[in-house]
């Protein structure tokens, strides 16, 4: 439809490896996700103690967003909308809450766990960290849906609801996790098209 939107950056986190704009920037094999997440946090010198209180979905989203939005960290408010999606919603943390309430002998559900039983909390965490008061949407799809994200991001920018859109896929289910986030804006190397998004996603 239009050619003046670009993918200004993309970040893939999976298999204990962080790819930033296609290049491996960090790797730590053989550890569980929380340990790996901590290694990313340390490697990139992030200083945000609330990180350690987050659930796995929020940690994953937080890290990918931090790598993409860093360097762009001016204090004034930036109008970056968030459009994230996944398959399993907040199932990983839902299970933890569920276990705590089904255990009749030790019935002590944790408020700190419950607050993460919604997938959009991870967008709240990104918004708090980067002070974004912008539009947020979280969708549940069977699989990564480049077409949908493409249309949504494009219309947000064309309708002037946002200057940039942080889009992508963020899924955590037990030990399986994957983040693929990218920023759509008015400059960049890659044209913002369905084919390009799909290619970047599949390149992994």
């Amino acid at each position, binding site marked *: 439809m239009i050619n003046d939107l670009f993918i200004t950056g993309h970040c893939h986190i999976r298999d204990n490896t962080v790819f930033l704009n296609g290049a491996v920037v960090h790797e730590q094999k053989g550890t569980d996700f929380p340990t790996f997440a901590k290694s990313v946090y340390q490697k990139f010198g992030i200083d945000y103690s609330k990180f350690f209180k987050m659930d796995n979905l929020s940690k994953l989203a937080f890290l990918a967003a931090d790598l993409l939005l860093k360097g762009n960290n001016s204090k004034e408010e930036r109008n970056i909308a*968030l459009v994230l999606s996944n*398959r*399993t*919603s907040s*199932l990983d943390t*839902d299970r933890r*809450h*569920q276990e*705590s*309430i*089904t255990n009749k002998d030790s*019935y002590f*559900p*944790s*408020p700190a766990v*419950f*607050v*993460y*039983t*919604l*997938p*959009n*909390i*991870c*967008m*709240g*965490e990104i*918004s*708090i960290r980067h*002070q*974004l*008061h*912008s*539009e*947020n*949407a*979280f*969708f*549940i*799809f*069977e699989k990564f849906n480049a077409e*949908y994200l493409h*249309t949504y991001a494009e*219309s947000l920018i064309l*309708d002037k*609801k946002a200057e940039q859109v942080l889009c992508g896929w963020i899924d955590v289910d037990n030990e399986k996790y994957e983040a693929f986030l990218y920023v759509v804006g008015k400059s960049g190397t890659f044209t913002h098209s369905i084919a390009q998004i799909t290619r970047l996603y599949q390149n992994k």
Partner: protein
Amino acid sequence: MGAGVAITGMGIISAIGDNVSENYKSLISGKIGIGKITQIDTVHKDEIMVGEIKDVNPSLEKRLKFHENQNSRTVLIGCIAAQEAVEQAGISDINDVRTGFISGTTVGGMDKSEQYFYDYFDRPDVRQHITGLHAGDSTKKIANHIGLKESFVTTISTACSSAANAIMLGARMIKSGQLDRVIVGGTDSLSKFTINGFKTLMILSDTYNTPFDDERKGLNLGEAAAYLVLESDAIVDKENKNVLGYLKGYGNANDAYHQTASSDHGDGAVLAMQKALEVAEMDPSEIDYVNAHGTATPNNDLSEGRALIRLFDGKVPEFSSTKAFTGHTLAAAGGVEAVYSILALQNDVIFPNLNYKTQMKEFDLSPVTEVKKKPLTTVLSNSFGFGGNCSTLIFSKAK
């Protein structure tokens, strides 16, 4: 003024009625739906009050002519409300134009998962509920029920603003010409999952919830499903459709403050309301009535009240929260209150904010507490969710 998107049908099931007209009757006769929980066996049953839909699952299944125990309650109530909306819109063939379905939910099939959690291994007859847990599954089942074939079906999950966001997204897709018709709203049933969770956050009231009251003790959870049918002007003109009202404006913003609490001065709420007014091309002074989010938690009502004062520069229009009737129906709340906003416009009536006695210390704001007849042109409805997700919808009267 922006043209807005035509609303041609609506459907609802909640603690105060099985359909639109029952809900309306309850709203104007002050009949609340809050009581002790009867359908879920929870350890908290004596300490909480809820807004339960009266019908048990077997009666809902009978109404829908469904087989027994194949679907979660979220799906059952969703099907009932979506079906009513489609019928009211006078749709004979739902696939005759590009039709979408966008539904908000947070619990999905959680009710069945907790019921059968320990049985999945031994009982193949209940394993259909495993896939039923997935939030997207409830959406697909409701879409099937209303006969949608090749169409745009999606699930939105942004906590208690889910349905409002589904409505917003649907309106945009009509405006941009991606769809000709879309059914939008949300569905959430009560479950131990949410009851226990909200209990740990200590924001559940042990008695009737009292929005905007100084002595408010917290919210009552509720369950509901509610949907609107939005149609393009082309269809409305061509089929000479009866329009119930227009969705004029919508806005969403993040409060960027806390995982669950609203900011002290309602920053996200103010932004969402401003954005909605911008889309509607309206001034705050044109709003006749505000259907507030008003959950009756100490935090929400203070933050929302301050946001209203900021947005309206002290001249807050008449407002009320209808949560004293229904309880907080979570992902469905934005849909429920959209239906109530349209009912208010159709009947020129403001619904009362029940159980209100004492003005809050922090500001000079009192909601409407009696049924009030008044010509209404424009109604603003707020829905705020955990994760800082704030949404506002603006509705106007059918011409």
